[in-house]
């Protein structure tokens, strides 16, 4: 028991403790978790590893990373199909069941206190240690832009293993040597041209020990990867036939809606007489943290939920927004210091506390709480009966779904069957298992009857764990046209501790998401310090697309822009001069070329640049704006990044453009503010994001120089806000140090 605890800790600390050595037996670490496909394997079917299942009818590929729009169902299938020589679409894809075997092998990279570009021995040891911890935990999670780095080798190896084992089966049957056999279009090819489809070989292949570690194809031989491919879900998603979690129906189900505490606390008292008086309301149930209404359809259940009168216990955080900012302002203390993440040169000497104001530039920046608000509201169908729990929904952490349902029902996690489905957007929203707990708590009171719970949009906003709030204080100095000193303090709640706390996983140690995007900035400023302060007692928060780099990246890149202009330097040229690694310099230079940075813009127009690295991907963006009579119009955005090889150029461009739209929309007008303990924004009318008419031209380039393959789901987001704010300054002379920007300037 103590062993388990320690490994959990080691992973969460995500820092020095891991480097210090993790105590568990080599055997446990080496042993791979069991293949979940091998359980209940039907007669005549073959599985060689947790990703491939073949029977006499079809080939099924398992894509355990959840698809919330980022296209990973297709990418995972392509990695397998490439090595298996399957025709595109000549297979079925399943999201699989929750299993330790699907632990994420790329999480370790970003959970250690080393910069992504740091390849030192210590860094490698720490990453290895984190990796082992995630393996032991069986952390099956889609997040942190890790799907591609996690899957790139693993799934190609799984595909190659399947291919070679099928060839071995064909060799046995034909009496030929394996070396004489080839594969093509889902079949083994004999020298005389005979084709034996994989499906015909399933039963024989099942009897063979899978061929381990076959060589992978050289990228020059790829048929699918690197080419534009038609997403496997594109026809369904264009014809209304895709089925999301919210669209499912189970025989005999009833419909539920909830009213949950907007203060994240308990119910003090309630009056359900108005709700019960509605002819279609069948039941009102108490569940932890709120009430549920059961009715004959979702809309009626929602009407019932709205009719409830509830008095909620007050919030454990400041009821008014001003109190949240005050807590952050009060957190710049030695006691609250979470870690000094960067300390190059001698900042104290360069920026003494008593330096004359004229020699030191100082500023304060603010980044708000922001809701995830994917377009598909949270929903789940749950049935609880004596055999266990069955759940249909969409989630990024399938094993946490099992645990949440187990906690809510008292049934063992192993008795929880979870069917994952297409997800209508997430941005981190579906890392949280609360909605599963609530649906399970309702279904537990109605044992034997499946319950479909859909959150009203207002409930989805009220109970969201938003992106964390952050406040930054910068001091800096310039000399001879250069930025020479920068001292940054960032205060924020620890999103890792907040999130892991809800999952029941103890987290300790400094949280690298407080300074993410700032401490790891690839700039060689001679005197450069970044300190993170953990603010306590604030609203519970969660990972929001690119997490900490949004706030801290805005703070760093906004303040750096001020310093560069103070030095009288060019914002792009000075960033290039400061860039300390070749990939970062490369993307800055590329974005300069793409945007025609040196060209002069007419009065009233302006360009801004920002570079933020998140999840190992440095992304440079230039935003071009015009100050019109109706407000700021965003004309163009240029994005240069580097993820190594791009596996699907169309999906890649779509994701980057989408990240830019998402980030700019949030920077313009999205925030959650608290009043009376509840979020004031309740729907898309008050938390809108970008509309189509506001969407700029977005040009995207990936340089393909990076040594390691990376994911692109999140990294395009953090540079958007500072690049936009910097462009607004260039166009208008107005420096905005607070998001969302609409608080200070109008948008057309």
């Amino acid at each position, binding site marked *: 028991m103590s062993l388990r605890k320690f490994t959990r800790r080691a992973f969460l600390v995500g820092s020095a403790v891991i480097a210090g050595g993790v105590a568990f037996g080599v055997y446990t670490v080496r042993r791979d978790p069991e293949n979940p496909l091998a359980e209940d394997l039907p007669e005549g079917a073959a599985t060689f590893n947790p990703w491939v299942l073949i029977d006499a009818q079809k080939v099924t590929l398992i894509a355990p990373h959840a698809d*919330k*729009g*980022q*296209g990973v169902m297709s990418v995972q299938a392509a990695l397998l199909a490439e090595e298996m020589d399957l025709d595109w679409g000549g297979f079925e894809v399943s999201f699989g069941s929750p299993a330790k075997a699907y632990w994420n092998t790329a999480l370790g990279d970003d959970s250690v206190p080393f910069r992504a570009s740091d390849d030192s021995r210590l860094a490698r040891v720490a990453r290895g240690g984190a990796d082992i911890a995630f393996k032991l935990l069986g952390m099956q999670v889609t997040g942190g832009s890790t799907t591609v780095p996690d899957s790139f080798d693993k799934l190609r190896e799984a595909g190659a293993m399947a291919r070679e084992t099928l060839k071995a089966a064909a060799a046995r049957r034909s009496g030929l040597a394996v070396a004489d056999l080839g594969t093509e279009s889902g079949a083994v090819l004999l020298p005389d041209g005979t084709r034996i489809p994989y499906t015909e070989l399933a039963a024989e292949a099942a009897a063979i020990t899978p061929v381990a570690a076959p060589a992978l194809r050289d990228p020059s031989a790829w048929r699918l990867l690197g080419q534009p491919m*038609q*997403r496997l*879900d*594109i*026809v*369904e*998603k*264009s*014809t*209304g*036939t*895709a*089925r*999301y979690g*919210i*669209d499912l*129906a189970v025989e005999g189900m009833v419909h539920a809606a909830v009213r949950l505490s907007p203060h994240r606390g308990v119910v003090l008292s309630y009056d359900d007489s108005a709700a019960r008086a509605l002819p*279609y309301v069948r039941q009102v149930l108490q569940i932890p943290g709120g009430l549920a209404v059961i009715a004959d*359809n*979702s*809309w*009626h259940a*929602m009407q019932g939920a709205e009719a409830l009168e509830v008095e909620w216990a007050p919030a454990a955080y400041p009821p008014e927004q001003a109190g949240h900012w005050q807590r952050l302002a009060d957190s710049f203390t030695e006691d609250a210091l979470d870690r000094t993440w960067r300390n190059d040169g001698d900042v104290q000497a360069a920026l003494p506390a008593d330096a004359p104001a004229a020699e030191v530039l100082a500023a304060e920046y603010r980044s708000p709480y922001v809701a995830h*608000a*994917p*377009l*598909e*509201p949270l929903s789940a169908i749950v049935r609880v009966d004596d055999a266990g729990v069955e759940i249909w929904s969409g989630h990024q952490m399938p094993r946490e779904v099992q645990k949440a349902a187990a906690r809510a029902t008292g049934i063992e996690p192993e008795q929880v069957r979870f069917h994952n489905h*297409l997800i*209508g*957007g*997430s941005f981190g929203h579906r890392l949280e298992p609360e909605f599963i707990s609530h649906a399970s708590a309702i279904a537990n009171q109605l044992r034997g009857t499946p319950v479909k719970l*859909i959150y009203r*949009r207002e409930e989805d906003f009220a109970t969201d764990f938003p992106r964390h709030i952050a406040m930054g204080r910068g001091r800096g100095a310039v000399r001879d046209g250069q930025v020479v000193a920068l001292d940054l303090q960032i205060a924020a709640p620890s999103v890792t501790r907040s999130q892991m706390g809800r999952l029941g996983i103890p987290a300790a140690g400094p949280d690298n998401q407080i300074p993410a995007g700032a401490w790891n900035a690839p700039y060689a400023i001679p005197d450069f310090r970044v300190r993170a302060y953990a603010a306590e007692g604030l609203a519970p928060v969660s990972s929001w697309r690119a997490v900490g780099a949004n706030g801290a990246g805005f703070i760093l890149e906004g303040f750096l822009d001020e310093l560069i202009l103070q030095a009288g330097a060019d914002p792009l040229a000075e960033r290039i001069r400061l860039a300390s690694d070749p990939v970062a310099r490369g993307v800055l230079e590329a974005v300069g070329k793409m945007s025609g940075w040196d060209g002069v813009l007419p009065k009233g127009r302006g360009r801004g640049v920002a570079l933020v690295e998140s999840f190992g991907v440095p992304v440079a963006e230039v935003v071009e704006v015009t100050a019109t009579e109706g407000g700021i119009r965003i004309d163009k955005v240029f994005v240069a990044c580097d993820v190594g090889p791009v596996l699907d150029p*169309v*999906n890649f461009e*779509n*994701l980057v*453009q*989408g*990240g830019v*739209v*998402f980030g700019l*929309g949030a920077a313009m007008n999205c925030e959650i503010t608290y009043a009376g303990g509840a979020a004031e924004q309740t*729907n*898309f*009318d008050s938390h*809108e*994001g*970008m*509309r*189509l*008419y506001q*969407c700029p*031209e*977005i040009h995207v380039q990936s340089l393909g120089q990076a040594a390691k393959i990376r994911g692109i789901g999140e990294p395009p987001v953090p540079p958007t806000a500072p690049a936009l704010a910097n462009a607004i300054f260039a166009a208008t002379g107005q420096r905005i140090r607070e998001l969302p920007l609409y608080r200070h300037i109008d948008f057309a």
Partner: protein
Amino acid sequence: MSFTVNGALHDPELDPDMPLLWVLREVLGLPGTKYGCGIGACGACTVHLNGEAVRACQVLAGDLDGAEIVTIEGLGTPEAPHPVQAAWIETQVAQCGYCQSGQIMQAAALLAATPAPTDAEIDEAMSGNLCRCGTYPRIRAAIRRAAHTAEG
């Protein structure tokens, strides 16, 4: 009270206050039309009512007598997609895809009324349809593609 949905006649017993969105999704079993906000702010529930794009969350069952409704399921099918759907597939617009039923219904109505829309007309028609994944550049491209195809 009776109305047609995708050409089929319906006369169900309905709560007159129930929005068309939920009638489609949960009474008639047509979940292609999506719930996003319930207040007319996102466009995920867009359908055609007597040939016009409307927000199904804002149309009440009690007002449906004689209405002709077309949903995404009636516009085209995977085997025989409507030209706007074909353009959406060809352009690979969707990310999560949750907004796209509404986007496509809105675009189909735009192109039916204005076969060769200007950029400003596209902006005007499409800005009530939110896409949280940010597929707007591809939505614009798909509308232009569909308009172009229709022109021949």
